[in-house]
């Protein structure tokens, strides 16, 4: 069950030893790279049954007060403060619940959660519980946009395949996106649901005028990508990153290949793209790459569809490259 061997702090987060001097109004100031870090062997203590339940048994536990009957999930206490500290007992709760309120969506996360964005985090009241459990919420239909999950939306707990006994072992998706059997199944795994179910928007056949627009946009995209490839700062943005992206727009389709610092455009159909981008107007992508508005905003505003939520990270990188090119021009 334990995760693959990995470091608590991934190497890419750790800066080198170093310092520099900053001069402000002819006065020098010394600035040093620094970190404050502490490692733990931290016990989950009385919370262990809950976290072991997640990790080993794919069960969710709450605790019930025998006096007031309140079932708290998560079971963050052992005695009920509302009933003069009557001892509570551990009870299993359901794996389907309703959202207590509309969950927020984080588009711009801190460095620790970049790979996860955009993500929703909300509170689910599971069947059999009275209180709400904080969970991440996702949709299987692509980017989580406002309106998909709201107050009262029925959601199902999904267990990650790779679990370590942490709250992040689980997340929720709307029940409406699952089959009856999946909803009924206890301990449903992430690998048991269809993440590719995102419905790709269909594009109409281009008119002659739209063909012209496509040609023009493609020409610009090619030029920008060439420029990105020639710009050291933009190349750094995709160091260590590899993606093959199929881009479909009205008028035609092409591929963008990102390969560890290189970016290129190929007018071909990929056999196994990492993900697909669909934009009704080819200008959407051209504008974004040319730094006329963020591509991330286009995704949020649904001008640009991407087939995998997780690939928001790649979109961020493309935005950053556009900014790097613009900055290098100055």
């Amino acid at each position, binding site marked *: 069950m334990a995760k693959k061997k990995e470091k608590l702090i991934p190497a*890419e*987060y750790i*800066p080198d030893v170093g310092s520099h001097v*900053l001069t*402000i109004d002819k*006065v020098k*100031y010394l*600035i040093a*790279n*620094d970190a*404050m870090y502490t490692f733990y062997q931290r016990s*989950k203590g009385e*919370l262990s049954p809950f976290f072991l339940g997640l990790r080993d048994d794919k069960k969710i536990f709450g605790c019930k007060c025998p006096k*007031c009957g*309140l079932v*708290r999930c*998560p079971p*963050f206490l052992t005695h009920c403060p*509302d009933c003069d500290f009557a001892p509570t007992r551990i009870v299993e709760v359901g794996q389907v619940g309703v959202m*207590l*309120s*509309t*969950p*927020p*969506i*984080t*588009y*711009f*996360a*801190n*460095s*620790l*959660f*970049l790979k*996860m*964005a955009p*993500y929703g*985090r*909300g*509170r689910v*009241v599971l069947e059999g*519980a*009275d*209180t*709400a*459990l*904080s*969970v*991440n919420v996702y949709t299987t239909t692509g980017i989580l946009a*406002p309106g998909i999950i*709201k*107050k009262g939306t029925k959601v199902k707990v999904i267990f990650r395949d790779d679990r370590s006994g*942490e*709250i*992040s072992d689980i997340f929720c998706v709307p029940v409406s996106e699952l089959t009856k059997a999946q909803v009924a199944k206890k301990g449903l795994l992430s690998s048991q649901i269809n993440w590719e179910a995102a419905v790709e928007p269909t594009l109409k056949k281009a008119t002659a005028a739209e063909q012209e627009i496509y040609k023009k946009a493609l020409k610009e995209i090619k030029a920008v990508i060439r420029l990105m490839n020639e710009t050291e700062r933009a190349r750094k943005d995709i160091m260590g990153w590899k993606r093959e992206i199929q881009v479909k727009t009205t008028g035609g389709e092409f591929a963008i290949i990102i390969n560890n610092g290189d970016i290129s455009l190929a007018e071909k159909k990929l056999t196994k793209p990492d993900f697909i981008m669909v934009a009704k107007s080819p200008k959407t992508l051209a504008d974004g790459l040319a730094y006329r508005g*963020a591509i*991330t*905003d286009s995704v*949020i505003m649904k001008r640009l569809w991407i087939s995998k939520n997780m690939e928001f990270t790649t979109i961020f990188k493309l935005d950053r490259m556009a900014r790097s090119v613009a900055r290098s021009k100055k």
Partner: protein
Amino acid sequence: MSKRVGIVGAAVTPFKAKWNEKTYYELAQMATREVVKDAKISIKDVDSVFYAIYNDIFERTCIPEHALHGLIGMQNKFGTRVSTGGATGAYTISAAHAYLAAGRFKTALVLGVEKCTDCFDFMSMSATPEVIKSIGWSADSFFEQRLGWTAADSYAEVVLAYMDEHPKDLKPEVTAKISSLLSQYVKTNKFAQRQHDQVTPQEVMNSRLVVYPFKELEICVYTEGAAALILAEEETAKAISKNTGKPIVWITGLGEANEHSFAGKNQKVMPRIMSDYIASHQAYKMSGIKNPRKSIDIVELHDAFVHQLEITMSEFDLVPRGNADALIDEGLMLPGGEYLVNPCGGLIYSGHAVGASNIMSAWSARNELIKRKKKTAIVHGTGSTIAQYTAVCILEHD
């Protein structure tokens, strides 16, 4: 019978996105130097110090105040620290008031300082993602940190829950207008981080979503700086006031409340900020305010997010809950309206130097009461996850 306590000195340092020129030592001393100058007293006349510092990780040390005690001249005297998230500053005023009211001391220095943007994310080569990460360690360590909790998404939970109940309130046009209005107010605050950053409502509307439903120009910005007050019990306050020629601004009401950090039945009521409601009404009661809409002239409210400013105003009973947009739609907070809200520009434009923020708000409220010859102001701090903590004080000018 407890003693009356008043503010007899106030000062702030410039609030800046980054102070490369100064450490938090110097920022703290700078505010102290200025505040004793404002009160025309010597630091030797100050009996006690109450430190307002939020986050040890920002200052890169635990008990960050220990190094300040000697360098601000308080050696061998009382010093304690308050740390209650975004409500740190307001809670610190409340703590200092209690000691003075009880007769323990004649004078107190309330000193807030924060140095947050030394935090730096080497991946994006910018401070903000690391500042947000550092604040993220404030989330519940068992049940929330690993879910990507941020201060913004936890306040967004409350705001969206409010909008579930009142879908017609907190209209984007209104939040945009409030942000734009605050950006106009900040023009006269020469200590503000964004003194020259005026925006139109349209620009606010067009700014990108950071955490749904918050847009970039509806969120407070992280700042480095310090702020300080001198508080004194009645007799001492009168003597200081006589010497400075500045009127005393009395602290006549205080209220504090912390909600549950978990939500659901018998716990946090998500669509409400009960802490704001309880604390403000406790403070009204203490200062004898029966009708806040009539009594309150100036509001210095901790606007972490514009939407929360609106909800907080409704919890204060200064605008109806469910129609907080009346603040703009009916002109309640527009120039010439019923209240002057965040004349300093709020934390969205002045900047949020967490521990110092509410003290800066008190500094502004005191200045405005004296300058405009108004009677009553309310100063507010909100903090922790899902707007859990509130501290409020009522300031009155006689």
